[in-house]
């Protein structure tokens, strides 16, 4: 539904590791995002090998226990949270649950907005005053999107690797036109003989990419083989073989009659749908990355899908439109068997970490996975068996978030707790999640 799609829900539970959550999202390991986005890190030893990072992290799902206590599995049929027929059903609360799964305990839940909606109706007036819920109406384009590598496998020797990766990119965006935004956000009246539109633009493309890559240590530091010091380089060349592609662009909406009430608005849908006639998309692109480690200092940059432009040799474009007289949808082929090009968005990561001898570790990451830049900065202070952590981040909605926490490590077992604010809910207030996990070193 229109109102159930706010700007961009950010990932609150970006990790199941309470240590990372307590540091505002900064990862102390060299796996995960670092290896995904920076091919140079495939040549760097993971920190688990030297015992400074856990080999295994087991989340303690206190939130799930609490959720199941409030929503017993044997009563889900009658649970107002999932029952649209219940007077207590709140779709916003359900969407909050989807975007913010209750794995960890919510110390402060984000309240679902509840307020009166006041509607003024006249022969030529229709005003919807959403009150406090107006904050949910997006000012700019809203939607979701991602670039994923569904699989990445292969074999190699001497730093070289030959393999194949699967890629999936999707992006869906909607924009309210000025007239509709004024009606919903500013309680402007729906006017006679006026069109109100939502402009949609969606793209999905997927396929396989045979890949040849290299990751190696270019130089060694004074520590020699025993240390990780040195400069690491990584690069990958992909030959993209697109399996399918589709893109839809156009408006949907309605045009009011005169008077507004008493006449039936005319539906509006006039979109163009581009699709591939078969798996005929090809293109070449690459990843590059560099990492430099010098004693306690470490920095890296990785960029993916550089120049990744796919040429689809056989595509068609169709016009899909609604005809109000027959109340039916129609489609006509505009062009067929034509060539179309698409691009994969460039994604990147930049990271830095400083591990001081005093037990202090400071780190930061800038990640763009295809839809907005996320920044994480965090610090950890260890003292004997205890650790204290804190961090801040800017999420995809450009909102500041805060993390803090601590932990205790006894031999090869650690128990950590992390707190994290998040805004990935359909409300303007931040929630706080408490993450707990056990680490095995």
């Amino acid at each position, binding site marked *: *539904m*229109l*109102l*159930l799609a706010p700007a961009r829900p950010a990932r609150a539970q970006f990790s199941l590791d309470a240590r990372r959550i307590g540091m505002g999202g900064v990862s102390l390991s060299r796996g995960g995002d670092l290896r995904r986005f920076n091919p140079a890190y495939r040549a760097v030893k993971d920190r688990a090998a030297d015992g400074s990072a856990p080999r295994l992290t087991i989340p303690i799902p206190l939130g799930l226990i609490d959720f199941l206590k409030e929503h017993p599995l044997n009563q889900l049929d009658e649970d107002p949270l999932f029952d*649209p*027929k219940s*007077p*207590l*059903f*709140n*779709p*916003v*609360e359900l969407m909050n649950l989807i975007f913010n799964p209750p794995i960890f305990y919510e110390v402060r839940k984000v309240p*679902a*907005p*509840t*307020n*009166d*909606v*006041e*509607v*003024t*109706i*006249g*022969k*030529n*007036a*229709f005003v*919807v005053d*959403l*009150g406090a*819920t107006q904050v*949910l109406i997006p000012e700019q384009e809203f939607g979701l999107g991602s670039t994923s590598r569904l699989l990445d496998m292969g074999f190699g020797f001497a730093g070289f690797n030959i393999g194949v990766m699967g890629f999936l990119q999707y992006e869906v965006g909607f924009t309210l036109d000025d007239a509709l935004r004024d*009606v*919903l956000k500013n309680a402007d009246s*729906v006017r006679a003989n006026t069109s*109100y539109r939502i402009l949609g633009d969606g793209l999905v493309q997927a396929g396989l990419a045979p890949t040849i890559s290299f990751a190696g240590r270019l130089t060694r530091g004074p520590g020699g083989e025993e240390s990780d010091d040195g400069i690491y380089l990584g690069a990958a060349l992909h030959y993209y073989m697109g399996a399918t592609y589709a893109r839809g662009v156009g408006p949907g*909406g*309605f045009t*009011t009659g005169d008077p507004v*009430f*008493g006449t*039936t*608005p005319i*539906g509006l849908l006039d979109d163009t749908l581009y699709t591939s006639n078969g798996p005929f998309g090809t293109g070449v692109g690459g990843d590059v990355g560099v990492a430099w480690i010098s004693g306690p200092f470490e920095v890296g940059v990785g960029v993916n899908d550089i120049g990744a432009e796919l040429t689809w040799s056989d595509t068609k474009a169709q016009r899909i439109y609604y005809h109000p007289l027959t109340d039916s949808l129609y489609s006509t082929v505009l062009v067929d068997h034509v060539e179309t090009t698409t691009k994969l968005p460039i994604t990147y990561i930049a990271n830095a970490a400083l591990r001081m001898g005093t037990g202090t570790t400071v780190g930061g990451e800038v990640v763009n996975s295809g839809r907005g830049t996320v920044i994480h900065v965090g610090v950890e202070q260890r003292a004997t068996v205890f650790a204290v952590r804190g961090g801040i981040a800017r999420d995809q909605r450009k909102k500041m978030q805060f993390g803090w926490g601590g932990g205790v490590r006894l031999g090869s077992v650690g128990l950590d707790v992390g707190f994290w604010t998040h805004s990935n809910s*359909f409300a303007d207030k931040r929630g706080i999640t408490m993450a707990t996990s056990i680490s095995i070193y």
Partner: protein
Amino acid sequence: MKALAVILLAAVAACGEGRAIFNVDVYSFMAGTGNDTVPYVIPIGVTDTVLSPPQKVSLPPGFGNSVVDSVRITSGGANLINTAGTGTIGFQLYIAGDSLGALSPSALAIDIPPTAVNGAQTVAVVISGDLSPALNSVFTNSEIWLSIGAVGSNTGGVIVTGDMALTALQIRVVMQEHIL
């Protein structure tokens, strides 16, 4: 109307357990149709009621399962444009889900006490108050029909004649939305 309904339902749904409040400007639907005016002619010693033709008022669809808490007139007025005679004129509002029903006594929603009229004069009448709770469920329909009635009595020696002309009528409907 479907498009408007979808937007409205989505808007109300997004507000969780909040109430849906409809301020319906009934007068805007009646003005200019002739249904906003009731001419009256009351013979000597007679009490009579004259109703206007029913007027349809469209409401947003999709609230059929909602529960109406209250319905009241927040702003209303009529002019009694008396041309001759002495007596009283009262205002009545009838509301039903169909046109025929709006002419039935069971559709009486509010009865404003009579106002005295005497000779050629225009008297303003304020219309306000809660509507009959028995009619609450009518407001969950996507259209309602209204009729206004003039209840006249002649206490003088000449025929009472004139028009009762509606000048404003706004109804506030408060409901606990249950849209699915």
